[in-house]
Structures are given as structure tokens and as C-alpha cells.
């Protein structure tokens, strides 16, 4: 039960973050250059993604379960640590925060400068940008769903349901707003997803090398709590360090 809940939440939040990024690209192109070719690009990318998932899913599921847990756990752990690292650096001010509104404006500027429609009326610029955005972000969602899902019985269905829920939430929000979802606290979400991916990765990868966790599934919230505390402490320490480094230079500017 604990694992199912964690799995659903992790797949939902991770998919939500990737889908918000895809939506920003699609909206920018669609609003600037029209919806027909943009929608075609989205449809083509969705079909291509379905093919990739249909080919990749059964291939991964064919691996022995212990190998699967080791490989999937290891991948999730590496992936999760990257997200967590970036989230801590953003939270402490060492990296700029991801700004969906700014990304939207950049995409719109690029879309205005792109080549016009072809002779057949299809706007290949809109098609390609929408296809690329949805396909690449969608590949990340597919990776999350397949890796999360395959390390647990009936997990793929649960992770796919979480991703589908995220898709509905983002599509409805996008249709209502017709603007980038800049109010979604994307950096906070990435922090939470980084923590969840790292927790799952640690748990499954260790099980893959025959570790017996004390308390079995109960170890999951314990790992999450330790990681969360350590990450918050890291953000605070780095923030203070950054402020301390900035103070002498400000003092020097004031005296100059």
C-alpha cells in the first residue's frame, strides 16, 4: 500500500512537471502561429510515443525481477539525485529558478521569427516544434512510467494511470488558462519529485542487490524523511554561504 501510494504520487508529480514544460511549448507555438499544424505535431508525437512505449515496455518487463529492480532502481537513483541536486542549487540561489513565463516568451519570439507555411498550407515550423516538444518531454514521462511501473507488480498500470491523471490536469488547466502555467510551483514540484525518485531508487536498487530493509516497506518513509531533512539543511547552509560570500563584495562596493 505504501509503495503503491508513493509510486502513484511520484509518477503523477514527475509527469506533471514534464507535461507543464510541453504545454508551454505547444501554447507558445499555437497562439503565435495557429493551431492546425501545431495540433498535427502534437498528434504525431503522441503516436510516435505510443510506438516507443509499446516496443520498450514488454522488452523491459521481460527481464528477471531482481535484475529489473537493480537496473530500474539504479537508473531512478541517478536520475533522482540529478533532480535533487538541481533543486537544492535552485532553492539556495546558486542556479536560476526555472521560469515558465520566460520560457513561453522565448518560444513565442522564436515562433514569430520562424519560416512561414509551405505551399500545401502546412506550417512545418509549428508542426516540428510541437512534435519535438511533446515527443522529448513525453519520452521523459514514458521513461518514468516504465521504470517506476516495472519494478512492482501491476506497477505499469498504476504509473500509467498517474501519468494519464497528470495529462488530464495539465490539458484542462492549459485549455482554461490559454497561457503558460506559470503559477504551478515547478521548482517545488521538482524538489519533491527529486526526493521521491531518490527514495525509490535507493530502496529498489538496494533490494536488487539482495538487501533486506528493516521494516520492509516501512523503510520508504524513513528514507524519504532522512533525505528531506538533509536536503532542507543543505538549502539553508548553501543559502547562508551564498549570502556570506555576497556581503564582503557589497561592503567593498559601498566603500568604493
Amino acid at each position, binding site marked *: 500500500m505504501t509503495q503503491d501510494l508513493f509510486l502513484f504520487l511520484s509518477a503523477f508529480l514527475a509527469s506533471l512537471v514534464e507535461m507543464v514544460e510541453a504545454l508551454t511549448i505547444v501554447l507558445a507555438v499555437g497562439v503565435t502561429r495557429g493551431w492546425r499544424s501545431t495540433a498535427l505535431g502534437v498528434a504525431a508525437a503522441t503516436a510516435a510515443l505510443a510506438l516507443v512505449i509499446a516496443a520498450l515496455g514488454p522488452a523491459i518487463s521481460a527481464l528477471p525481477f531482481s535484475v529489473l529492480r537493480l537496473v530500474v532502481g539504479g537508473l531512478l537513483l541517478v536520475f533522482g539525485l*540529478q533532480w535533487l541536486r538541481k533543486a537544492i*542549487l535552485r532553492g539556495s540561489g546558486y542556479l536560476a529558478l526555472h521560469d515558465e513565463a520566460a520560457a513561453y516568451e522565448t518560444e513565442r519570439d522564436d515562433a514569430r521569427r520562424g519560416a512561414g507555411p509551405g505551399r500545401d498550407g502546412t506550417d512545418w515550423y509549428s508542426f516540428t516544434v510541437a512534435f519535438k516538444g511533446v515527443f522529448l518531454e513525453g519520452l521523459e514521462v514514458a521513461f518514468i512510467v516504465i521504470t517506476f511501473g516495472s519494478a512492482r507488480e501491476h506497477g505499469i498500470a498504476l504509473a500509467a494511470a498517474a501519468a494519464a491523471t497528470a495529462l488530464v490536469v495539465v490539458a484542462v488547466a492549459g485549455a482554461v488558462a490559454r497561457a503558460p502555467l506559470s503559477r504551478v510551483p515547478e521548482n517545488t514540484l521538482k524538489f519533491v519529485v527529486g526526493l521521491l525518485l531518490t527514495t525509490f531508487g535507493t530502496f529498489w536498487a538496494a533490494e536488487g*542487490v*539482495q*538487501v533486506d*530493509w*528493516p521494516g520492509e516497506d516501512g523503510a520508504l518513509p524513513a528514507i524519504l524523511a532522512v*533525505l528531506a531533512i538533509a536536503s532542507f539543511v543543505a538549502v539553508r547552509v548553501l543559502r547562508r554561504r551564498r549570502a556570506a560570500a555576497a556581503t564582503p563584495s557589497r561592503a567593498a562596493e559601498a566603500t568604493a
Partner: protein
Amino acid sequence: MSYVVKFLRFWYSFIVGDDWRIAAGVVIALGFTALLTDRGVAAWWVMPAAVMAILFGSLRRAIR
């Protein structure tokens, strides 16, 4: 650049990202854990400890 190279680069930057030492650290930690469990040692503590060390090491390098 060929599509295969682009595809491989996408997956490398997606999974391994900015710091390859994270991936290397995870592989080493898993190898060490496997070695201990193979000898009958209760090694559940190794991965959480390694994860902390890998994360803080990567953060230290990033802010230098």
C-alpha cells in the same frame, strides 16, 4: 550530427546530466553493497549513507 548520436546524447544528458560522478558513485555504492550482502553482512545502511555522500559531494563541486 547523426540522429543516433543526438538520441544517445539526449538520454545521456537526461539520465546522467551535469555530473557524471553521481552515476559513477551509485554504481560503486551498489557494487560495495552487493559485496557485503554476498558475505552475509546486513548492508541496508550502505546505500542511504552513499546517497548522502554522493549528493553532498556533487553540491560541493557545483558551488566551487
